[in-house]
């Protein structure tokens, strides 16, 4: 076992993990943060996307042990975030989810695209979502919701 100290959604967590445990499995099974979803477990679907030290990463492709000393933010850690509130609202109104399995990864990816100013057109949003697979919606409503949130968020979450 490897000892780790990680900040998860703002709170310090000290734990012992088996080296082979992915960050995604540790969050779900060790921290009960089941908003992070694991599907392909080899980096292609994006369902497991979380922030580590402020940047999106694949939680299936990072070992929990390698997270030592870092700050992790999962979909549960955005409750008071204005940009995420705008995204959730737009996803809800635009019907941008059906089963919801891809949604936490979509939201975090979209949050990062808007924050970096990479959601200025439908084409740019689609390019930015290429690593997030949705098997239900056909993407049209997801792209529309992100475009709407990006416009609404100008001056709020943008340009950090």
């Amino acid at each position, binding site marked *: 076992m*490897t000892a780790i100290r990680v900040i998860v959604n703002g709170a310090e967590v000290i734990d012992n993990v*088996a*080296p*082979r445990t*992915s960050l995604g*499995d540790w969050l779900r099974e060790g921290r009960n943060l089941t908003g992070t979803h694991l599907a392909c*477990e*080899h*980096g292609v679907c*994006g369902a497991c*996307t979380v922030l*580590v030290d402020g*940047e*999106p*990463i*694949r939680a*299936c*492709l*990072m*070992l929990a*042990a*390698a997270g*030592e000393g870092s700050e992790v933010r999962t979909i549960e850690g955005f409750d008071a975030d204005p940009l995420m509130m705008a995204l959730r609202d737009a996803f809800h109104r635009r019907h941008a989810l059906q089963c919801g399995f891809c949604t936490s990864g979509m939201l975090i*990816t979209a949050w*990062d*695209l808007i924050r970096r100013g990479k959601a200025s057109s439908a084409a740019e949003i*689609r*390019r*930015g979502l*290429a*690593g*997030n697979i949705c098997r239900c919606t056909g993407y049209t409503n997801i792209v529309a919701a992100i475009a709407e949130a990006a416009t609404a968020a100008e001056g709020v979450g943008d340009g950090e």
Partner: protein
Amino acid sequence: MKAAAFDYVRPRNVAAAVDLLAADKGQAQLLAGGQSLLPLLNLRLASPARLIDISRLPELAMTDEDDATVTLGAGVTHAMIEDRRVPDPSQGLMPHVALGLAYRAVRNRGTLGGSLALADPAAEWPAVLAALEAEIGVVGPNGRRRLSGTNFATGIYATRLAEDEIVTALRIPKLSRAARWGYAKLARKAGAFADALAVAVADPRRGYGRVVLGAANGPPLVMTEAGRALAGTRRDPEQLRRAVETDLDSAADRRFDAYQRRLHRAAAMRAIVQVIQ
């Protein structure tokens, strides 16, 4: 799937990593960004006894720059190149390439060194660094050495790196302001591995011309005739097209089928046209 069990160590510096790697020859594997290794572990295509985590070694994250070259540590990530958080020797070629490599969440962790050491034939960096004539710095139990980036990869997932060596840094000659580059990646969707990949670079001030193909059934393929034609001052598209055909003819050992040959020809010509336009 889940990875099989292994031990995990995080050495404090490169010297300690070299010792650990030498002590566990054949049993241990280096872990950098993990963006190729973790899929292999999760799919149980690899099952090392121990992982040596080099992802946060400061020595591998360093960058340096002088008049003629830029040095990038092996731990520099694709996203750092994309965002120009590290010096760019290539007049914008490398940031442009990074943007189309995998997805942002993968680029935030995947590294230059990992990409070179793995030598996936469809990967971008081996071809780009061959086109820029980069030099690869490595260290092992017998000390440091420098290898040419042009023939660092020797085959599919095979390189000149010894089993107990670590890639530390890349030394990349700077393109002059007068240099021009072209780049074409043919893939089924944005961010996917390439079906064909071509990099063309011409730097008239140095009389330099290079055209390199990636995803070419082997290590990066340097197109010598096309490169020579691109280095010249009178560059005629028809002559370049003929040079590309000659180079594809000379690459019989790559066994391109008719479709692959069309893909490679298209990629090479698209990259070349961007240079001469």
